[in-house]
Structures are given as structure tokens and as C-alpha cells.
């Protein structure tokens, strides 16, 4: 009570949102200095879920770090794996068979759809609407079943290996993925009617939490956040990797910069990802899924490289420095959520609590990805 009385004199008070709060989706703490319901300052406090993944990457062999990648951004775990194996392959000069690259793209894009679906549901829960979450989970379930059939897990995937993938896809998977593309396309009008056209949803998103392109650039925001502010920044187009150059897809960009733009970008990305999956399934070549002669104890030559992938949340980068031994000398993980969160402090100032939490939700943060 004494701290409350003190705060009354200053006409502002500190509100702790988190580490356990329904709007933070994990152990993120935001120290809000409030003037009534207006936010004077919002200071994100992170590190509650810090597990020293980067250090762990330095004191164990390359292969032993692979399962850790699934624990960074566990909602879109395949991208982390892709970034890490991509960096090590570049370091070791491994050539990945084309079939494996196609399988990587197919599974990653399926993972992106699953991640965006989860976001749509969770964002609506942030706004107080519970029902869409269950519809999203219904569709996401099909993807998880598909991915489980090839990767063996449903959330923290560890599917990619240096030089390929550990399991070839079978006909069941291909047929299932095709069926999913069809069913998901038929579901899109439902989401449109249920969510996009909902009057309260639009009131809560349109013109709320506007991020300018300059602010996004300043804090290194990427992914749907920057694409919702009118910048067509997509690693798949700008620094093409894997077999993305051979596939035809668009980068959805909206210029409004508000929560609605970020929502629309993600919905459009689901449609684009469906296109990518469909094309990749058509073009899927026959052949091996692992490169020949990848040594069991991988010792990449001395070197320093950076590999960037477009994860569901933005640009996920891995910098790996090898000193020629079995362990990486340094492993740096560039997480999209960390940069996307960092702009929150500046942008939340002067906003109302309700709107600021809508903005926070629209950034699509996965807290273990921030903390690493």
C-alpha cells in the first residue's frame, strides 16, 4: 500500500505486466509506467527464460547442438534448424541434395502456416475473443500430424541434418500435404468472415499501434512486422537460399503499419506459403535426401560465416565461427523476436494499455526466442 500511496503523489504508477500475465505469452515482463490508463514508459525486462543456447553451441559438437535449435522459437522450430544447418553447411562446404532442399522448403513453409495460425488464435485471445483460437488449432493440428509423420515430433522439431534431412518423405506425406493445401484454401474465407470482417476486431486493429518504416529499420525489425509497415524485406527474396529462387511466390506488403496491416500480412503469407508448398510438391525431384560422406564428427575448416533464413517471425540468422575443431568457436543466434520487441518501448509511449497490449500481441513474440 505504501508504494501505491507514494505513486499517487507522482500521479503515475508502475504496473508490472508479467513475468506472469495473460498477455505476455510466457515469461516476459514489461515494466509499465502509467498515467491513468496511458503509458508513460514501457520497459521490457527479458531474460527469465535464458538458457545460454549460444554458449551451449560453443561447448558441444556441432551435431549435439542440433536439438537445441528446436527450443529457440519453438512455435516455428524448423526455421531455427534451417538457419543452423545452413550456417554449418556453408562453413563445411557441404552440398545438399536437391530433394532434401525441397523437403526443407515444404516442411518449413508448413511450419510457417502453423506458426501464423497459432498467432492468429493467440492474437484474438489477446483481444478477448477466444473462439478463433480453436478453429486455428483445428487447422494447425493437420500440419502437426503431417510434420510428426516425417520428423517424429510435433513442436520442437529436429529434422534437418548437416547435408540434408534425416528422413525421406513418403507418399502419405505428399498426399496429406496436398490435401491440406486444398482444405486450408477452403478455410480461408471462414477466417475472413469470422475475423477480418468482425467489426470489433477491425476497430481494435485499424490505426492502432502504427509503426513507421523508419522505426522498424531503426530497431532492426523484420518479418511481418516490417512488411506491415511497407518495406518489402524478405530474406527469401533478398538473400535467396535453398530452392526459393526456383519457386514463384509474392511477398505480401501492407503500408498502413498498424495491427491490421500486420494481421493482413500474415494471412496473405499463409496463402503464399500454400502456393510454395504446392509448387514444391510438384517439383519435388527424386534422389537422396542426405549428402554423401558427411563425417560423423564434423570439423569444418577455419572460417566465419553467417546464414540468414526468413523465419515465421522475421530474419533468423546464425553466425558460426569455426576454429577447425569439433565445436564452434563462437555461435551467435540473431533472433527476430528480440529486435521486434525492442521497438515496443518507443512505440508504446503515450498509448493506452489496451492498445499497447494489442500492439504487443501483433508483434508475434515467442519469449524463449528472445531470451535464447
Amino acid at each position, binding site marked *: 500500500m505504501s508504494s501505491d500511496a507514494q505513486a499517487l503523489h507522482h500521479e503515475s504508477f508502475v504496473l508490472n505486466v508479467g513475468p506472469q500475465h495473460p498477455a505476455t505469452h510466457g515469461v516476459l515482463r514489461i515494466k509499465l509506467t502509467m498515467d491513468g490508463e496511458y503509458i508513460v514508459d514501457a520497459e521490457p525486462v527479458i531474460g527469465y527464460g535464458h538458457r545460454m543456447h549460444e554458449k551451449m553451441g560453443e561447448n558441444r559438437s556441432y551435431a549435439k547442438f542440433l536439438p537445441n535449435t528446436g527450443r529457440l522459437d519453438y512455435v516455428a522450430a524448423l526455421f531455427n534448424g534451417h538457419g543452423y544447418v545452413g550456417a554449418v553447411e556453408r562453413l563445411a562446404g557441404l552440398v545438399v541434395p536437391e530433394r532434401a532442399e525441397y523437403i526443407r522448403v515444404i516442411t518449413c513453409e508448413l511450419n510457417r502456416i502453423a506458426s501464423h495460425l497459432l498467432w492468429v488464435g493467440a492474437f484474438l*485471445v*489477446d483481444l478477448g475473443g477466444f473462439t478463433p483460437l480453436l478453429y486455428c488449432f483445428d487447422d494447425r493440428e493437420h500440419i502437426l500430424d503431417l510434420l510428426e509423420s516425417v520428423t517424429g515430433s510435433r513442436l520442437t522439431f529436429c529434422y534437418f541434418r548437416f547435408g540434408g534431412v534425416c528422413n525421406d518423405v513418403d507418399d502419405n506425406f505428399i498426399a496429406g500435404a496436398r490435401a491440406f493445401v486444398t482444405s486450408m484454401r477452403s478455410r480461408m474465407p471462414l477466417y475472413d468472415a469470422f475475423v477480418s470482417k468482425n467489426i470489433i*476486431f477491425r476497430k481494435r486493429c485499424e490505426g492502432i499501434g502504427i509503426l513507421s518504416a523508419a522505426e522498424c529499420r531503426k530497431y532492426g525489425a523484420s518479418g511481418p512486422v516490417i512488411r506491415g509497415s511497407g518495406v518489402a524485406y524478405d530474406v527469401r527474396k533478398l538473400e535467396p537460399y535453398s530452392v526459393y529462387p526456383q519457386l514463384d511466390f509474392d511477398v505480401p506488403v501492407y503500408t498502413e503499419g498498424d495491427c491490421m496491416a500486420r494481421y493482413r500480412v500474415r494471412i496473405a503469407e499463409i496463402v503464399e506459403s500454400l502456393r510454395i508448398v504446392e509448387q514444391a510438391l510438384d517439383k519435388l525431384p527424386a534422389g537422396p535426401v542426405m549428402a554423401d560422406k558427411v563425417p560423423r564428427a564434423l570439423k569444418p575448416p577455419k572460417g566465419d560465416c553467417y546464414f540468414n533464413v526468413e523465419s515465421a517471425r522475421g530474419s533468423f540468422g546464425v553466425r558460426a565461427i569455426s576454429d577447425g575443431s569439433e565445436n564452434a568457436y563462437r555461435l551467435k543466434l540473431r533472433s527476430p523476436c528480440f529486435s521486434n520487441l525492442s521497438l515496443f518501448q518507443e512505440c508504446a509511449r503515450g498509448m493506452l494499455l489496451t492498445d499497447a497490449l494489442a500492439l504487443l500481441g501483433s508483434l508475434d513474440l515467442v519469449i524463449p526466442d528472445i531470451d535464447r
Partner: protein
Amino acid sequence: MTEGMLMNLVRLLLYLVGMIGFAAFNAAYLTLLERKQASWMQLRRGPTEVGPWGLLQPVADGVKLMSKQLLLPRDVDVPLFLLGPIMVVVPPILCLVTIPFSETVVARNYNLGLLMIFAFGAVSTFALMLAGLASANKFSSIAAARIVAQNIAYEIPLLVIVLSLVMTTHTFNLHTIVAQQAGGFWHWNLLKLGANPLMPVAFLIYFICLLAESNRAPFDMVEAESELVAGVFTEYSGMGFGLFFIAEYVNIVVGCCLATILFLGGWHCPFGLLPGLHWFLIKMYALCVMVVWVRWSFPRTQFYGLLNLSWKYLIPLALANLLLTAVMLKLF
């Protein structure tokens, strides 16, 4: 004389037990209805394990809530904190006293019944605010401040609408209001376009205010779980927490009863056949289902959106409605 008094006392006791039983039953089974209806809307099954078709789930919930410890956080204002839930739950139960469920089933037929319901309704909301302030929790305090603004914003259009109805019916007695609507559905106040062509709009305003007054989504600023954790309920546990929910559901029942009486002809059949309690209950529960339906279809509004809706649209509309009623009354 003494026999008459005794009969009166027995009658009073029976009604008291009946009202509390009705309120408790509704609070319990509306939670089940809510969970079942939500699950149908959300591609799932809802409670299925306790009893056949989950029918005993409310009993299990009640036992669970009662077996929990009532926690008293260190800084709370103890008397207010304990009084809060009780003061929230008693007024809506008292409101049921004057509701005419049928021609004969009415505990106390007050001449100012309508006024009494609104008087007690206001007590309930302010008790919620007190509970929030007594919690000594920032989230609860913010919610308490919101309740005051919300209550003022939505009590006005609600009362203005009811006032226009009182003007057309010339009475505050709920029994008389229903009796005036005898006959088919075209006699209902909802369709009494001769008295006021805006009657359906008035009903819509009443329904929106009902959602806001009973703190239901999309206007559930009191709870607002993704912003204010659990709003004024944050520090409450066990049955203290449970009482708030009983109050919420009884408030819905009272609001829906009132809508049935004021607009939908109370116990009268839409086709003039077999009037009675059953028609009242059918209409009332249909409205309850609508309240639940709205909750699971919409996200929450912003707080200022809520106030804007009231001050910019509902209050002017309600006032226009009042003016129109007065003009029509003078003309015809």
C-alpha cells in the same frame, strides 16, 4: 387475522427459498449452458465427464470453489474485501422478487417494481467497484475505475429507454406492463410501432446496455483477462470468486427477464395460445442464449470504444427515442 399473517409469513418464506433456489439453479446451469454453447461454437465438446452429458459439472465446480481457501492478501481492506462479493450477489437476487414470471407466479407485485430493479442494479455495480478498490491491487484498481465510467455511460441510455417505455405504458408496475401486452406478438411492446416507431431500436439499445451492465463480453472491462489479469476478481479465491460469477449470471437472468417483460410480452404466447410460465421461460432463456452467443463471437472492445459507443451513439439515440415517444404521445 393471525392465520392471515401466518399464511403471509409462509408465503414469504416459500418465495424467499424459491428465489434463492431459482437464482442458484440459474447461476449453476447457465455456466454449463455457457460452456456447452461455447464448445459447440468452437468445434469441441465441453464438459462431458461429470454426470451424463456433463450435467453434474456445476455441482463439481461449486464443490471445488467451496473447498478452496479464501485467501486474504496482506494489504487488503478486510471488511470491504469480504463484503464485496456478498454485496455484489444480493441485489440481483432481490431484483427477482418483483419479477412476474406469470399471471400468478410473482413474489411481490410492487407498483414501483421497475424502479426497484434499477436501484438494486446500481448497488451491484458499485459493490463491484468497492471490491476492486478493497483488493489493493493495481489491476483491480484500474478495473474499478473502469466500472464507474462504464456504469455511468450505460445506465443513462438504459434508463432513458425504460423511461420512454414507462411513458407509453403509464406504469412502473411490471405485472401491469405485461398485462397490457396480452394477445399475439403484434401486441408486444417491441412491435408497438404506433406508440413509438423506434421500438425495435430501443430494444437493441436495451440489449447492448444489458451486455454492458452485466459486464459481459464484448464489454467485460471488469474482468478483461488479457489486460487486467482478472480485473476486480484478481485477488479473490474460492467462493468469494465464485460469488462474483453467480452475481454475473443472476444479473443476466434479471436483465433477460426484464427484456422479456418490457419488450417481449412476458408470459403471453406469440399466437395468443396457452399463456403461462413456460412462455416466459422460453423467451428469457432464448435471450440468455443470445447473450452467450455474443460473448463467444466477438473480441473485447477497447475501453474508450465502449464509452464512445455509449456517449456518441446510444445516448443520442435513446434521447431521440424519448423525444419521439413524447411527440407520438402528444399527437395520438
